[in-house]
């Protein structure tokens, strides 16, 4: 099993979720993060105090999938989230030791 973490642009969430559903991913967790990267932030000015906002709103998607799905999932996310403009985000793959479904106590790939 692998955990796939994807950082994407917020307005791409629906498309990515649909792409994931298509490759058979049935579960995921989503949260808001602030991203810092190559994409330049913007300047905000409050009564003359100018300051740079480097942290941009991004969405983090986390989903644990079986090893054989990893490539398809990466492909699905990458193509759905791509705009080609800077700041599109990243996908990270992390190893997972085990998974448990709380409701049923199922373990391992059964659980995801």
């Amino acid at each position, binding site marked *: 099993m692998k955990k796939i973490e994807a950082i994407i642009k917020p307005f791409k969430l629906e498309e990515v979720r649909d792409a994931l559903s298509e490759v058979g991913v049935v579960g995921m967790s989503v949260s808001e993060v602030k991203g810092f990267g190559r994409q330049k932030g913007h300047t*905000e*000015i*409050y*009564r*003359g*105090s100018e*300051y740079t*906002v480097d942290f941009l709103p991004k969405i983090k998607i986390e989903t644990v999938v079986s090893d054989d799905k990893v490539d398809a999932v990466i492909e699905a996310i990458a193509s759905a989230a791509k705009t080609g403009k800077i700041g599109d985000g990243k996908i990270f793959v992390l190893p997972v030791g085990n998974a448990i479904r709380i409701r049923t106590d199922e373990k391992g790939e059964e659980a995801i």
Partner: protein
Amino acid sequence: MMNSDNNGRFKRFLAAIIGFGAISVFAQDGGISAGDTAWILVATALVLFMNIPGLALFYGGLVRKKNVLSVLMQCFVLTAVMTVLWTVVGYSLAFSGTGMSEGEVNLRSFVGGLDLMMLKGVTPDTPADNIPKLLHFVFQMTFFIITPALMVGAFVDRIKFSAVLWFTILWNLLVYAPVCHMVWGGAGGYFADMGVQDFAGGIVVHITAGVGALVACIVLGPRNGYPKKPMPPHNLPMTVMGAAMLWVGWFGFNGGSQLAADGGAASAIVVTQISAATATLAWMFIEWAKFGKPSMLGAATGSIAGLAAITPASGTVGPIGALVIGAMSGTICWWASTVLKQKLKYDDSLDVFGVHGVGGFIGTVMLAFLMSEELGGVGYGEGVTVRSQFGVQLFAAVATAVYTAIVSFIILKIVCAVVGLRVSEAEENEGLDLAYHGEEAYND
């Protein structure tokens, strides 16, 4: 705003000398007018509404999440404290006319006596000309509440709650009450006798609050991390809501200061509306030109600048004067709150001085020119010229500013010695809501 004791006289004077005849039909017969009373009852509610929730929200939205309750608390509790203080002694110090006599300078030209303490002798049927004296009392009370509350914006995020209470109580007794008395205390008042024009509180409210705030923020020192660390407003819609409530409530502030429901009150709200609008647009266009983007915060701040500036002039200038005062205040207050503040490096966090102090000053001196009949104003009194009026306005404004600065400084030093002014660094990091009030504003 006029003192209850010479209100009728002053009106008749105006009516006679400058043809300002739109006085409600019952104001002259000496009885209490239900129409005038109705309007001042509402105006009182409107000015209270300016303070809570208006000002509280305006300021509350501008601070960081961890300090919003501390700001609301200060506005809220000042409302309570000043109500009691005004009842016990404030009203008497500001409006007792005993011992005053026109043209004579004595102690009572500077501060009222104690004979009206606890409203002694005032019953529901005691009149103050055309309205009940109790209504004059409570309408004026709302000014006694909002003036110190305006200063809250200068010391947010870093002042002890107890210091706020001590500072504002002493300040209201030693600054607000005497200045109010000198201007609105009636014939024999120091500034009143000079012929100063301050319809609804450019000197009494905005210059005193603006200067007091400036001194306070300098004595307190800047917020931790200022100006490097960004401290963006945590909730701008809250601030906009507050600004809008201030705008609406200002109809009561300026229109109510006519103390009658007549053409003068209507004129006051007309010029109030025009000045607020023009200042909003001025501030907006400056930002648009300079940064390419007009901000909501800028527009809202502009409106408050325009409202503060028209306040002293709202009984004397017409629509043209309001356009000029609005445009000037939008421009100059913008400059004071951004360029000047950054140059001088004081941390007047929410720009009380830049908006209220400067705005109040603009209105106070400009009205000398704009009250001219050619510009649609009420015109000058007998023997008064634009020059002499300007001199009086300038003198009263500057004298008040200097007096306020000195007394505020002394009070702050005393309060600092007794209870301390500034919170610890750890408390400032944690936020005043938790450190001083044991609460968080938002929970899930």
